């Protein structure tokens, strides 16, 4: 008897489960596996992968490894799979692309020609080391590279040479920009939410509408609007110059100022709405009660209203921060070269160079950051009493 309702309930939530599986779990698993595994080489060059594991990395690998490579290349019929192999090897050692292209063509014509005669680069240990490094289907190279680390020739983890990679700096910049935007949203959003909650009627509708209307407008439209306002001959500069406040146009766009300004505007609703909804539950007569007990308005605010709105403030801050660190379009359109955030690096690896593993590894870093923050949020929102 009790089975049937359970089954019915399961059927009812089945669409939800399918949705979560297809749009959440599956992509997540794919991203994680892309970041740590790349079976291209072990799949397309299986003989080479097993033969080269016995090589000690000194000098050149023996004849059996070279023969294995030749056999693998002769046996391969899938050009696109070979393309994946070449892309991966070229990412480890520049020059592999032309080397492999040349070798594949040469081996088609004369399968027995020694590799070193096809191209003298096969006599360079570095190319063989790159094959050995990538022979395993699992690797931490992408995750390490996404935070500017690499494995040395002896296998120990070390920092990449200065100037060759800036992922660490860009991740820090992403966090810093996110923090600035959060702070600006808080400074505007908290008083705004308090005013909104304290008025009634058309005033409240107007104030809420001013926050909600931008929320319903496309992000791209709002960003483009800021471009029109901020550019060198834009409305703001023209107005300032017309009023004689400045002689030359101010640099408002293509710098950090513009990015923070536009992102603050776009993300402000996520700060105002949670604080506002918390404040609605605060009885309106509390401030009056505090005053009747002799508290100065500032003291009443600090001791009564602020602690009571803190839950909304914290969820607002986390919402804004977590959205901000994933921003792509606004910094790309309004920022300069030194304002790009981590998503622009991910976009470069995905669309620019088809290096999906690197894009996945960087995405994973962003995801972990967000999850840590989410855990923090959960903890803080569960113990509101501890906060005041």
């Amino acid at each position, binding site marked *: 008897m009790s089975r049937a309702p359970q089954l019915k309930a399961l059927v009812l939530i089945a669409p939800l489960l399918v949705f979560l599986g297809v749009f959440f779990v599956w992509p997540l698993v794919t991203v994680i596996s892309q970041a740590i595994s790349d079976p291209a080489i072990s799949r397309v060059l299986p003989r080479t992968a097993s033969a080269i594991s016995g090589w000690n990395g000194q000098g050149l690998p023996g004849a059996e490894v070279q023969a294995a490579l030749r056999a693998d290349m002769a046996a391969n019929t899938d*050009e*696109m799979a*070979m*393309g*994946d192999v*070449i*892309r991966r090897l*070229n*990412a480890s050692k*520049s*020059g*592999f*692309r*032309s080397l492999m*292209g040349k070798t594949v063509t040469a081996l088609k014509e004369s399968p027995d020609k020694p590799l070193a005669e096809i191209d003298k680069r096969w006599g360079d240990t570095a190319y063989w080391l790159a094959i050995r490094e990538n022979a395993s289907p699992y690797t931490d190279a992408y995750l390490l590279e996404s935070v500017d680390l690499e494995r040395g020739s002896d296998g120990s983890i070390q920092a990449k040479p200065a*100037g*060759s*990679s*800036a992922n660490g*700096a*860009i991740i820090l*910049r992403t966090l810093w920009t996110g923090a600035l935007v959060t702070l600006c949203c808080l400074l505007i959003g908290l008083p705004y939410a308090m005013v909104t909650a304290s008025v009634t009627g058309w005033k409240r509708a107007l104030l809420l509408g001013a926050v909600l209307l931008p929320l319903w407008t496309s992000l791209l439209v709002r960003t483009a609007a800021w471009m029109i306002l901020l550019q*060198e*001959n834009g409305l703001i500069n023209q107005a300032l110059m017309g009023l004689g406040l400045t002689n030359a146009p101010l640099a408002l766009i293509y710098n950090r100022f513009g990015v923070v300004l536009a992102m603050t505007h776009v993300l402000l609703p996520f700060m105002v709405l949670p604080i506002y909804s918390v404040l609605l539950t605060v009885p309106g007569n509390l401030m009056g009660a505090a005053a009747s007990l002799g508290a100065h308005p500032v003291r009443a605010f600090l001791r009564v209203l602020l602690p009571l709105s803190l839950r909304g403030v914290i969820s607002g801050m986390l919402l804004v921060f977590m959205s901000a660190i994933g921003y792509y379009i606004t910094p790309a359109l309004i920022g*300069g*070269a*030194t304002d*790009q955030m981590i998503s622009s*690096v991910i976009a*470069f*690896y*995905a*669309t*620019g*160079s*088809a*290096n*999906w593993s690197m894009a996945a590894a960087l995405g994973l870093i962003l995801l972990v950051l967000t999850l840590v923050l989410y855990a923090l949020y959960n903890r803080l929102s569960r113990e509101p009493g501890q906060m005041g």
Partner: protein
Amino acid sequence: MIMTRLSKYRAALVAGAAVLALSGTAALARDLTVVSWGGTFQDAQRELFFKPFAEKTGKPVLDEAWEGGYGVLQSKVKAGSPNWDVVQVEAEELALGCADGIYEKLDWSKLGGKEAYIDAGTSDCGAGHIVWSVALTYDGNKLTGDTPKSWADFWDVKKFPGKRGLRKGAKYSLEIALMADGVPANEVYDVLATPEGVDRAFKKLDELRPNLVWWEAGAQPLSLLQTGDVVMSTAYNGRITGLNKTEGTNMKLVWNQSIYAVDSWVILKGAENKDAGMDFIAFANAPENLAKLPEHIAYGLPVKAAAEKVDPKLAPDLPTYADNLAVSIPLNVDFWVDNSEELTQRFNAWVAQ
């Protein structure tokens, strides 16, 4: 009562199924989709090639614009049944994709054979469509008297004060930096192939860093020059001549030490309209059709017979004009195919500092 209700449901079901079936067939018969680089260039292509081809075959041609990026094409093909058929790609994307097998092999017999093209315009997977240059550009109305003539002048901020625009990316920036540092044009790629050469190029870029403005879309350098945000910039040659014609500007282009490359048509592997795509490429690159392009936009033509038909008055504006070719260098595709990822990463790190 129940019967009529049921039949109503059935009618609705049948109607729904019909709609589904119709949309299904519509999705099956996707129109030939041609993808190019947008802007005034694609407007010209639409008038000269897309519309006439659609009229000739009686089937519509859908045109879309893209901004490059090998990953875009690779992921479309890898996912199966790409929604683009014919794409205009840069030389590097052609070489990468042809090696990776993401393009269909072309039927050169329909294109008049490879000997009808200049060498850089032929590949198993791609047929050259235009020859374009990246060159030093300045506003002839603002810079008068002593004008810049080389990349060394581009770096000379004392003689020509003001900001400079460069295309954001390692490609072009590194070559230009080396030429500015005195490397002869024909040795640029030999020097760049060595680690010391790369260091030298970045060191030269360091010098200009406070004065650099980066651009990405082809229309940006023109507006930067027009507003006076930069005093000189690199730009695509076709757009310069086009702007002078349409807006009466006096942008000057320095052919000396410019870098030229060929853009080609490719057909994505597994594209549904690959036969129609092949016919389209043959139509667009037919000498009598292609020869009309320079009237609209000043790009050179890799099809020899088409290049001969071009109005001699227009020829000096094209990258393929003998005097222009003599002082410019071809983009070394092999070099960038091998080194693009490593140098782009380093360039991005350099820019981010």
